[in-house]
Every structure is written in C-alpha cells, then in structure tokens.
C-alpha cells in the first residue's frame, strides 16, 4: 500500500481525525515523504536483535490488592463536556 490519498483517508478514519477532502492529497505527499525518509532504517542489520522493551534495566513494579482510589465521582466528571445523573453522555451509539 503506497501512502496515497486512499491510505490517508483510511488511517485518518482509524485515528478518528477529520481531514478535509482538499487536505488529503497534500497530506499524502507529506506523509509519504516522511515515511520514505524513515524507511532508511531498513538498511540496518537487525538479524537476531531483540526489540527494545525497556530502555533502562528495571523490573516491573506492582501494587497491592487494596482499594486505595476512587469514590470521587465529582473529580471524575469535573471536566466533562457533558454529563447527566453521574454519567458521561455522548451522542447515542447504535448497537
């Protein structure tokens, strides 16, 4: 899949970003340009190399199984663009 107008339309949909029709073509050129540039990574020999999972050596930290958080609905809803009766609300989702 070349990074063309159709691809931009598809990934913009995946990313939930509305791109005006007139922007599709120039955006495709910009993105194709960047992708073309990063493709030089293909030159690097990575045979047998493990992909990085953690940049510094450490082990995963954990929390205990205690209820230590929550019970502050006002904080959760404080910045909501729209809320009703303790719920966030959005345009109706059709199942």
């Amino acid at each position, binding site marked *: 899949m070349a990074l063309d107008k159709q691809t931009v339309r598809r990934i913009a949909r995946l990313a939930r970003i509305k791109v005006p029709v007139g922007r599709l073509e120039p955006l495709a050129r910009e993105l194709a340009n*960047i992708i073309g540039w*990063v493709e030089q*990574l293909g030159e690097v020999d990575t045979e047998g190399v493990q992909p990085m999972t953690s940049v510094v050596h450490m082990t995963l*930290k954990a929390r205990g199984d205690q209820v230590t958080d929550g019970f502050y609905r006002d904080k959760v809803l404080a*910045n*909501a663009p729209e809320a009703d009766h303790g719920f966030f609300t959005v345009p109706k989702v059709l199942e």
Partner: protein
Amino acid sequence: MVDLTELGVAEARDLLANGEILSRELTAAHLEAMAARRDLNAFITETPERALAMAEASDERRAAGEAGALEGIPIAVKDLFCTEGALTTAGSHILQGFAPTYESTVSAKLWRAGAVMLGKANMDEFAMGSANVTSYYGPVKNPWRARSGPSAGKDLVPGGSSGGSAATVAARVAPAAIGTDTGGSIRQPASFCGIVGVKPTYGRCSRWGIVAFASSLDQAGPLTRSVRDAAIMLGAMAGHDPRDSTSVDMAVPDYEASLAGGAQGLRVGVPKEYRLDGMPAEIEDLWQRGRQWFEDAGAELVEVSLPLTKYALPCYYIIAPAEASSNLARYDGVRYGLRVPGDDLIDMYENTRGQGFGIEVQRRVLIGTYVLSAGYYDAYYLQAQKVRTRIAEDFDQAFKDCDVILTPTAPSAAFPIGEKMDDPIAMYLNDIFTVPASMAGLPAISIPAGLDGAGLPLGLHVIGRAFDEETMLRAARVIEEAADFTARPPAA
C-alpha cells in the same frame, strides 16, 4: 539593592536563607518581569495570585523554620505538567478548559520543596516540535536577536518543545523552569536560548501527571541559567514514584555536591559519527573548543564510535509517533477538553480531533497510525525497536572507554519564526544530536558555550551513563567554567 530577576536558583536560595530577601519580593519581581515580557508569549496561563499566595506561605514556613530545598524560589512550569485547579493545555486546543483535579508528581515535589509557581509555560502542541511554532496559543519568541546575517531583525524561535520554559529563563522572567524532553525538547531550546537544560535518565523523574507524548522517551527536567541551578532543581524533581511503573527505585544523589569534581580523571568520548556532512563550521568549531576545554582542564579525550547515529532520528520518528498515536487516543471529547458536535458519535470524534489537534500533531498521529497498521508493524515499528536496541548497545560499548560523551546540542543556532515550517524533515533535523541519547534513555545536558557569528547562543551537549547524572553534571560544570558564557539576550 540587587536586581532580584538576575538571581539564579542558588543565589536566591542563599539570600532567602540569610533573610536578606523574602519570597514575596522575589516572586513579585518575577511577576513584574513576566508582565513586562508578554511580547515573548512564553506563558499560556499566568498564575500571579497563586504565585503570591505560595510566596506568602513560603515566607511563613521559613519563619517557622521549615524551609525546603527550593523554599521561596519562583519557577515556570511547562504546560504539559498537570497542575491542580490550573488550566493545563499541552499547548493544544483539544484540552480547552481542562483544569486537572490532580497535581503531577514532579510539580508536587517542587511545591513540597517550597517552590512557587509563576505560570504555565507555552510549548509545542503535545510537545511535538522543535521551534515552539505548533502551539495552539501561538509561537514563543526567543529573547535573543541576531546582530547580523539573514536572521537579523527577525523574531527567532526559542526551540522546542519546551520553548516557553527556555525563553522565560533566558529573559530573566524566571530563575528556573521545568520542561520535558522526548527527543531534545529541553536541550535544544536551552541551546537556542543560551541556558542550561537537563534531560535526566529515563526513569529518574516520575512521568505521573505529565501529559504523555511518547511514553518510552518522555522525561521531565530543569531549565536554568547555571549547571549548579540545574543540579539543585534536578535533586528536587527526581525520585522514585510508585505510581509510575517505569520510575526507578534508586536513591537520589546530592547532585550539587557532584559539581566540584573537576575534569581530572574524566574520560570524554568524542563520537566520530557525529561529524555529519554539511555540519556548519561554527558548530564544528564550537565542538572543537569544547574538546580543547576538556583537555585543558585535565580530561582525557577518547574517540568513540556510535555507528548508528544517523539512524537514531528516523528511528525516533517511527517510535515516538507510534506511541503518540496511542497516547493521544484518549482525547475524544467524552470526558474532558474540547467537544465538537457531529452528526453521530464517530462524527463527533472526528470533528473534535480534526479541529482539536493542530497540523503537526495530526501528522504524527497519522504517521503513528500508519506504521502500526496491519501489515506494517514489523517493517516499521518492530524494526525501529530493534534498531533502538542496537543504538543503546552502541552507547554501552562506547561507555566502556569513556565516562561522558561530548557533542554539539543542535546543528544550528535559533532561526526565524516561520522557517522550516513546510518542511517537516528539515524541522526534525534540529534534534539530530539530541535524539540518540533519548533513544538510549541516557541523561544529557546542554550548556551554553558560545555565540555564533550573528551573536546567537550555541550549546554543547554532554551525555552521561544511565543514572550517572553526577558525572554528567561534573563534566558540564567543566564546560561552563571554561566557556564563561556571560552573554545575555537584549532586554525588551
């Protein structure tokens, strides 16, 4: 009477401790400077009332004998740190009106240490940029101006993304600021603004409460006018946080004490691959001067090899956008920030994100979405993570022969606002020298080291071993002493 806005962190601390000045005086002086320098557009939100209240409280604590390490020192906070009750925008329209109900770990530590918040500093939107031109709140101006050459008479960029933080410190509006660095976002603006900027080792400072850009790279750090001030600030910002799984559980050393070491016994690595084609002569000269300073001070110069240097930037431009595309999915107009109505739910999402995100953020989210999409993951993202492993291994190898690595911070001095705007890759190249250390999670610092022919500041860059900020700061102090950088931007 001293000019209070000329004081650095250490000087102000000492005068406050002696009782010669009060925080409310120091803070008021900086608030005045802030008001006088609105031309810089360095703040998204000024918080003068909060600042004065915090200063009063600080003076009371000091009177009660309870002074912290930064007691009474006013600072600017990049608008990427969530601050309780104070608008936090990440420089984006999409966080319109967002007032967090919580305080980021790093800023909370600073307030606990007695620091005073002047305001929320402008920045590139979601920290994506190297010139502070992508902010929804407009570009930040660099207080420096070119004396001559093509940039003369033009407003210059402060670098980015922590451009507001850097401009504010350079313009004496704040003695110190905090920023974040993902690929160079503290160090490059520090270089452009003639100040010191530190990116600590990944894991040294908690990321909790900092709006995420690229989680595996983001680190908070200080911007100051001296290495000592940076050490003091870093000491207050660093430390383990159980709320951040990637924060490291290690004691925080006394960074200020580490400055005294000097260059004796220091092995300074000079990576041969940093001599890029077309590196401006002024940058090459500055780098040469830096090597000479180290040698003169008694350090040993070692040529090291970082063969994958040229791949670090393209590698970064896969990993950072990929992580960002996922991190920014939460800005959907449902729970906070901007909501732009639509015909249905999906339309609302698309309108909100289409209008809420600026062009550069959209570009990176789309790049990230593309490289992670079905069929492309292995070729782009997986390959990038493997290259990243190799970049980190190269540094490990180099650090067998040296204690710190010296490079230029940026390939140029500050450039006029508006330049490189329609050439993303040219803009990305600003970070060519800072990104490799980011990819390897290493601590690095930019120190103002000289002026270019147009009288604009240039920085040198010292990279340390993981969690060895002490040696990095000690080396930086050597540069600082030798460079004796006393130039300053013109007053307003």
